[in-house]
């Protein structure tokens, strides 16, 4: 789960990590008010959306006067911000962050990430901040410092020193940086983060270290123990169909194609999307109804898939195994009747009583087409939408 920059900065502030003075604003007037409250110029007006690259897309602007602050707020608030992370459709800006401008000496990169292979929590920092870190890693890997922390031993002072000295900071800023590293690590662990990134972390002309940006995402599996983080979820930033699916415990991701598909199990669901494409069509979604699948889930799955107007055909691929195919087929027929199916559905199922299952589909009088195996299913559904 992702949160906004202003929310991440609030968490930073709670942990004693220096952030620029400022606050979130819910409209243009409020933004102007926030700028006045700062009592200093210049101020920075920043669009709050869950995507990076906001500056390049015109979502971050510096104002030297209050009039300018207002006009920037007017320009950004309500705009559809397109960045390399939003896709071409962009994201509507509904919230702003207004902050004091800083006298920046140097831009740094700072992140904490879990390393899945070694099961360690890793600081990744670089004095080449403000740029795309993947680009830095590709072109000048020597400029990236990594410090791995054993999750059982936890953060030690030397880890923080390695981070601070690795950033090549002036002596006056080293102590502050070690304290920041330690606090950010604590924040990362205590809130079960999956990513904490500050790009840029800045060194000011008077040797202060301040988090100019803040990006945090959280381990969805751990949200049950962080009600405060769950409250920060912004449903406006998510696809409405995906939100609806998550209410039914379905794992749905919308795609651009026209073949809807419903599969039990994530790996098989991905492989089913792939085979749809290989058969010459495009998947309209990823939808995992879970390892076991029942009539209720199939019904909800149908509803979600059919809410996408692009869908011209559906492929259901259920590898039941332990599930009985006759039960499953009855479930599919029941669900299809309830939702008023208006596109053809190819059903591929495997498990016990598969012949009986196919007979039920055939005799239902609905537009349900049986496939004998996966290759056959993909071909049949691709032929339908062609």
């Amino acid at each position, binding site marked *: 789960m992702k949160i906004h920059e202003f929310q991440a900065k609030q968490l930073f502030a709670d942990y004693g990590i220096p952030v620029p003075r400022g606050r979130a604003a819910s409209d243009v007037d409020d933004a102007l008010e926030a700028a006045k409250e700062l009592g200093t110029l210049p101020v920075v007006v920043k669009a709050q959306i869950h995507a990076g690259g906001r500056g390049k897309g015109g979502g971050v602007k510096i104002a030297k006067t209050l009039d300018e602050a207002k006009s920037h707020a007017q320009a950004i608030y309500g705009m559809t911000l397109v960045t390399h992370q939003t896709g071409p459709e962009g994201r509507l800006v509904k919230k702003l962050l207004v902050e004091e401008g800083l006298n920046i000496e140097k831009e740094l990169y700072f992140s904490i990430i879990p390393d899945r292979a070694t099961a360690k929590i890793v600081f990744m920092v670089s004095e080449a901040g403000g740029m795309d870190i993947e680009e830095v890693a590709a072109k000048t890997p020597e400029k990236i410092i990594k410090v791995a922390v054993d999750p059982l031993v936890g953060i030690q002072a030397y880890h923080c020193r390695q981070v601070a000295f690795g950033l090549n900071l002036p002596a006056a800023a080293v102590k502050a940086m070690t304290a920041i590293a330690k606090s950010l690590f604590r924040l990362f662990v205590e809130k079960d983060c999956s990513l904490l990134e500050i790009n840029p972390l800045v060194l000011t002309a008077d040797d202060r270290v301040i988090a100019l940006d803040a990006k945090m995402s959280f381990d969805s599996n751990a949200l*049950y123990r962080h009600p405060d983080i769950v409250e920060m979820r912004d449903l406006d930033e998510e696809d409405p169909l995906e939100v609806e699916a998550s209410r039914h415990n379905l794992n749905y991701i919308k795609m651009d194609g026209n073949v809807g598909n419903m599969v039990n199990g994530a790996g098989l669901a991905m492989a089913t999307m792939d085979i749809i494409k290989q058969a010459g069509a495009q998947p309209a979604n990823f939808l995992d109804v879970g390892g076991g699948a029942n009539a209720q889930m199939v019904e909800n799955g149908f509803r979600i898939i059919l809410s996408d107007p692009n869908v011209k055909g559906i492929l259901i691929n259920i590898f039941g195994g332990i599930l009985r195919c006759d039960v499953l087929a009855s479930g599919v027929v029941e669900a299809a009747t309830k939702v008023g199916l208006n596109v053809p559905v190819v059903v591929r199922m495997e498990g016990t009583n598969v012949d009986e299952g196919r007979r039920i589909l055939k005799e239902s009088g609905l537009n349900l087409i049986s496939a004998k195996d996966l290759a056959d299913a993909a071909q049949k559904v691709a032929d339908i939408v062609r």
Partner: protein
Amino acid sequence: MSIFVNRDTRVVVQGITGKEGQFHTRQCIAYGTNVVAGVTPGKGGQKMDEVPVFNTVAEAVKQAGANCSLIFVPPPFAADAILESVDAGIDVVVAITEGIPVLDMMRVKTYIAGKSVRLIGPNCPGVISPGQCKVGIMPGVIHKPGGPIGVVSRSGTLTYEVVHQLTLQGIGQTTCIGIGGDPVNGTNFIDCLSAFEADPDTKGVVMVGEIGGTAEEEAASFIREKLSMPVVGFIAGLTAPPGRRMGHAGAIISGSSGTAQGKIAAMKEAGIHVCEDLGSLGKLCKKVFG
């Protein structure tokens, strides 16, 4: 022969009295697995069907001689259940539970590093040595005993699909392992590949990966350097969009890393027979394994 579990495996089911625990315990027993005990704290002394239930894993080890645990405990308590098994001296821990926080698993993985215990999963279907022992939730009936092929996969139902196709081609399996879809897991591809290499009855391996992380790339270089038997590989997620978690917590393309294309390239370079169309995997295996 087989790896990790066999006829002599004595299973304790943690969470045996829950709905899933009960259902799958019965399925395992029906397959022929020797389930010697169950554990549900507070229900010690009861029985689930004929299986004695204990309060702790330590008791199940001491009194019933369990050497393998199968875990159905809900995510908030699952890391605790794994550690309990490890400290009770269990040899093979199979964690089915999906949704364990990553930081919990990092601590577990660090704790067991250097110990002799083998943790399979979490978020996995488990492990089966067809005809001998099933410790997991996979449908036993799709498997074919007698080998000579080992299967290792990050997925659940996708593994069933692969095994089903092997069986339809008349190709049996020595052991099939689902290593799980989480970013931090106990057993990786390389652990399974080296165990298959050491198993005299395994003559080839099917390796099923998916997007996210670098486990497949690392396995590919291991295969090139150390494995003497042919490998057929498959990667799910060619059409997955970057930055999205595709069901499994570990299945996410971040930036340019973890793509299916990158993994397939690494596997091909290592001499693995990569199947790019899941519908024809069985046929490819027939061709490669004979």
